[in-house]
């Protein structure tokens, strides 16, 4: 009962947030809808005992990335109205067609005998928890090489971004 509530409440919030992202006219509302989705997803992670992933989700995506999004939206001006004309010819019909295909696929899966409507969660005894110690143990032994490569990649990207920004600034001051 509690498990079902803990699943359906954040799950419906995720869907509501996603709908706000798609349908809201105001960019700030879109961003806040995405924040709602990300925070609700973190709650789902907690119910799956992946506390570390949940906290990183809150810290990195909901906390840092979306704040920067919001910052950029505020800086470039939010009062501009979005263009509501179709950029692709027959866009609306195309969307409806793709939507129908997707719905029929989902309906096929739901109706077919492979799928079980087992929505009542049996109480599972987790013997594996997503603790920081466990993740660190795997990350810094088995996956140390990809981990270091990714960190080098990020530093290269940061350095490149700084170099690009610095160059244009110098040109502007010379001209």
């Amino acid at each position, binding site marked *: 009962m509690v498990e079902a509530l803990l699943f359906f409440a954040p799950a419906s919030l995720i869907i509501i947030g996603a709908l706000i992202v798609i349908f809201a006219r*105001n960019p*700030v*509302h879109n961003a*806040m809808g995405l*924040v709602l989705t990300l*925070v609700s997803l973190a709650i789902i992670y907690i119910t799956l005992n992946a*506390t*570390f992933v*949940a*906290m*990183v989700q*809150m*810290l990195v995506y*909901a*906390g*840092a990335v979306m*704040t*920067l999004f*919001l*910052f950029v939206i*505020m*800086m470039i001006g*939010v009062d501009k109205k979005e263009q509501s004309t179709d950029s692709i010819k027959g866009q609306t019909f195309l969307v409806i067609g793709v939507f129908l295909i997707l719905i029929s696929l989902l309906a096929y899966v739901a109706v077919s005998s492979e799928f079980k409507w087992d929505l009542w969660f049996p109480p599972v005894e987790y013997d594996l*928890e997503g*603790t*920081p110690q466990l993740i660190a143990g795997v990350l810094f032994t088995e996956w140390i090489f990809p981990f270091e490569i990714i960190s080098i990649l990020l530093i290269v990207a940061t350095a490149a971004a700084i170099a690009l920004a610095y160059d244009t600034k110098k040109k502007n001051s010379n001209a």
Partner: protein
Amino acid sequence: MSTELIIALIKSNIVLAVLLTNTILLIWLERKLVAGMQSRVGPDRAGPFGILQTVADAIKLLLKEQIMPLKADRAMYLLAPIIALVPSFLIFMIIPLGPDLNIEIGGKNYMVDFVGADLNVGVLYFLALSSIAVYSVVLAGWSSGSKYPLLGGVRASAQMISYEAAMGLSLVPVILYSGSLSLVDIVSSQSGNLSTTVPILSSIVSFIPNWNIFPQFIAFGIFFIAAVAEVNRAPFDLVEAEQELVGGFHTEYSGFRFAMFFLAEYINMFNMCAITATFFLGGWLGPTFDGFLPPILSAIMPIIWLGVKTFALLFIFVWIRATLPRLRYDQLMELGWKRLIPASLVWLILSAIVLGLREFGLPWS
């Protein structure tokens, strides 16, 4: 209802009550202290020493008309004060207030841990919630539909993002020393006294408690500066610099919605001091005088010790506010990005090297 659920409900209500009454005391204390430092009298009419002044102010704010600007974005305008208040209450839940208590209810023994929730990712939880708190300032500034709050909101978001990085980095060496992300474990790792391998120093050092502030004094300095900046207090209160921005992000808020921002600021300040005490000053640890005091009194001694440490830090917060002039905006950014973040990175590497040497010995031996 299960007993565990009832215990959890009681805990949440205690946290709510403590934080709200504590804020009343805190606001009065700050006004009195600043008044004393500036040779003024301060509030002295309502109640003894003016201690009920905050209550009067709260009632005034509750009864005031709530004005919403015509150009305000309604949903976000109403949401912002709520986002400000909720994380401030949630952060307090992870601060350990004392050792585990053994309570007997109906013939059954229950171990009640004296903390809202002992999370194994407590430090990350604290950082995540303080980054959520940024939204309240940004949204309040943007949704008011006015220029001063927007400028205040942009300033605040830049400042809080910058100092969050320094704050997180300064906590990493503490986590390395304690070997855990749980605040309960961080407190218990600070029990006992300092020890050293140098024979002459050991007799002097053995009187000093094993608090993280002694090996980690630079991390403490960085964390404390970042904490002052994170709660937007003077000298980092550019967010609400009244000469430039009227009231900053909450210019257009009035009545109880303004009171919610005010409340959140003071609760955040209290939280920051309690967290600093937990990370660096041993949290609730201290002598309990088991033999001398009655058992009830020695049972609440941990809370008193945490309170003493927290209020000592709060006094420094107020002292700084009364003493230092406000920083200029470029100075603020320079301090954050060019001083605090590199310093915390260097300190992190030094701490890691020292810990590595202690754990594995010299590489050539």
